[in-house]
């Protein structure tokens, strides 16, 4: 039995159009935010940057994951995370403004403050501008290299249909699995944990890691389900295939909760001021409502919604909940980053909103660009047919 693939439909022009509009609005709003208050704008910009890292690098991790575990069900949709991983190309440019904002973002870049502070002084061998930029560069380079390796193999296979390419991607993904964990942990520590340079949590890296996977699988689910329902793949698989998206969203999200809670509980239990203050900052003033909100937005609501089996094969629910979880991840990043700037309480205004708009504009543009240039289905992948006929039994 072979499923005939018809030529995929072109993405509707509205995707590109909306990408342009969102990007333009985002650039204007972001620019205005920088004009009004650059210090504040850098935090909003960092928020956007981390969100794009989650989606871009997380998507690349999903691609690697498919190779690594030999999954079939996701092969027909694999181009979605592959396209999204293209965001990595832009990260290299997007990071540049942040390097100019380091003084605004990071207390530990203030030489006079470090000189008076024995703790910062002792952290200086790690937390110093040169090493920081070098790390960022190396990490971006690793991401670029693996993005290149995976997409090159995958695109070559469209024409050659050579199974050896899959084998080589499996090797790369074994390496990338380790490098992904390391690079994403260091990224979390450098760009977010060091916002409060006195604070440390050994679980912080894995906390962000869990969040990136939630964001990446959710956006992949959202786009794959939309495209499949709209018949843009040139094949149409039944709702049964959504079950894996639903399960993975559920699983990654519960994993995030597990890590988030473990981090909180250990610090709560030990009750040592040098660790608790990070949470105290998020429990004071109006931040406390935002923190409690995180519990509902990122755990309780998606948990209950995704729990029944029926909701994991319901296209509308998958669409709705994947959008919800993307929102939840943005919420989570806001919760991590912004209290360092808004010390007195929760604030969210157009200054920040602009950057979120810009993030979605960039995502739409990257996806649209990739979809216009490359096959939206990995037509040469030997696992494709198995994926199309995938049954859970």
């Amino acid at each position, binding site marked *: 039995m072979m499923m005939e693939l018809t030529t995929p439909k072109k993405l509707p022009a509205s995707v590109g159009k909306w990408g342009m509009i969102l990007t333009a609005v985002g650039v204007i709003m972001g620019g205005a935010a920088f004009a009004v208050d650059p210090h504040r704008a850098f935090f909003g910009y960092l928020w956007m940057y981390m969100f794009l890292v989650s989606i871009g690098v997380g998507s690349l991790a999903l691609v690697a994951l498919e190779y690594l575990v030999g999954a079939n069900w996701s092969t027909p949709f694999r181009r979605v995370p592959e396209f999204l991983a293209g965001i990595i190309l832009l990260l290299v440019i997007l990071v540049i403004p942040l390097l100019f904002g380091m003084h605004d973002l990071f207390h530990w870049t203030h030489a006079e403050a470090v000189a008076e502070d024995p703790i910062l002084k002792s952290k200086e061998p790690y937390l110093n501008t040169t090493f920081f930029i070098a790390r960022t560069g190396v990490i971006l380079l690793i991401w670029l290299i693996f993005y290149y390796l995976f997409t090159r193999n995958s695109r070559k296979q469209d024409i050659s249909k050579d199974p050896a390419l899959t084998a080589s991607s499996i090797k790369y993904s074994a390496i990338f699995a380790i490098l992904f964990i390391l690079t994403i942990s260091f990224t979390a520590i450098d760009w977010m944990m060091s916002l409060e340079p006195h604070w440390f949590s050994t679980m912080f890296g894995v906390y962000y890691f869990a969040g990136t996977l939630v964001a990446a699988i959710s956006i992949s689910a959202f786009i794959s389900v939309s495209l499949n329902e709209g018949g843009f793949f040139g094949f149409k698989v039944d709702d*049964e295939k959504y079950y894996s998206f639903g399960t993975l969203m559920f699983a990654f999200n519960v994993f995030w909760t597990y890590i988030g809670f473990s981090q909180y*509980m250990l610090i709560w239990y030990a*009750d040592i001021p040098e660790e608790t203050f990070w949470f105290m900052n998020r429990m004071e003033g109006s931040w406390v409502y935002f923190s409690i909100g995180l519990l509902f937005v990122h755990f309780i609501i998606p948990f209950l919604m995704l*729990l029944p089996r029926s909701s994991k094969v319901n296209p509308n629910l998958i669409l709705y909940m994947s959008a919800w979880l993307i929102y939840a991840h943005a919420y989570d990043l806001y919760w991590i980053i912004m209290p360092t700037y808004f010390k007195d309480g929760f604030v969210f205004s157009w200054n920040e909103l602009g950057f979120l708009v810009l993030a979605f504009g960039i995502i739409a543009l990257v996806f649209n660009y990739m979809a216009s240039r490359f096959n939206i289905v990995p037509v040469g992948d030997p696992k494709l047919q198995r994926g199309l006929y995938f049954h859970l*039994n």
Partner: protein
Amino acid sequence: MIKKIVNFFREYNSRNDEERRTDRLYAVSAIFDTPNEIMAAASEVSGRGYKKFDAYTPYPVHRLDQAMGIKYPLVGPIAFTGGITGLFLALLMMWWMGSKDYPNIIGGKPFFSLPPSIPITFEGTILLTGFATVVGMLILLNKLPKINSPISDTEFMKRVSSDKFGIVIAADDRMFSETQVTELFRSLGASRIENIYYKPSNLTDKTPIFNRKFIMTLIGVAAIAAIVTYFTLNIVLYQVVPFDWMWKQARINAQSESLFFANKSGMREPVAGTVARGFMPYEYKGLPDSAVRLLANPLPVSKNVIEKGQEKYNIYCSPCHGYFGDGDGRLNDQFPKPPSLHNSKVLNWKDGNIYHVITNGQNVMPSYEGQISRDDRWAIVHYVRVLQRAKNAKDQDLPK
């Protein structure tokens, strides 16, 4: 013995196996070779309107429930209810233990708070979810008290529990007709069609779970399992690290020898001058004169105090000194006899002197400082005075 047991089971099983079937039809069964066939067959059978039918697979086949037309699989809600119950019970338990039953301040934390309760709550949720699922499935869905279905011990059951897929349409279905059902199965491509008849025991034995032999077997198995478990865990494994339940530890037990210390005693003595909490060392050790001069009985002479003194005297002093202080204790000369406490010397002693003897000891009489509390010692002194007074009563003491 073991042979007997094995034979019993063998006989029991074969008797069941060979049980002659009655000629009353229970159902028609069909066997299919692939999961796709069973899916198609299930949806066809339910599409035709049959209600009393069931499908059997050697492993879970997803979506079979939907193909069979089961709209609401009950297992989900049962599991969820169990989970929610577990969640609230665990929270209730944590709250009750921590703040009602045994409130203890630990690390300055409140008696009850959420963070440390979450792991327990999580476990309680999972535990009751599991219980509810298994018990609910066995009893509600698999109708547990009935263990003797006509389907068991058939060729059909043997096949579907190893590598085939089967469907059974019960004869008491509204639409059932033997020829039609057989025809339907044939048209669906069944590889084997078989009529299943009732066993005689199905028709007589209403609740075979209460069958005497079954209950005895159950008890037998439980007993054997318990004994085997007990011996493995407590006797056999107990000898082996790390299953010895920390019985063997790298530490020195009380009262045991240790070559590590110069005096070869495993127990250490407190640093010289150490004073235990709530304890005052005796100031007049070896200084009877100062004790006599400076000590006065701080306790009032009251019924309570005298009774306390009597109690303690009878416990601690009477074995040697006798109940009335005559020096005629119950030790039968295993210990030097003490003098009478009614001699003129002790009669003329001040309270402090008696107290000093109790606390400090005198010659062969040991010190009771460690056994008897300060107040009790003074109470004894009062009681000794009572004894002395009673022994030396005068005529005019008697009431007229």
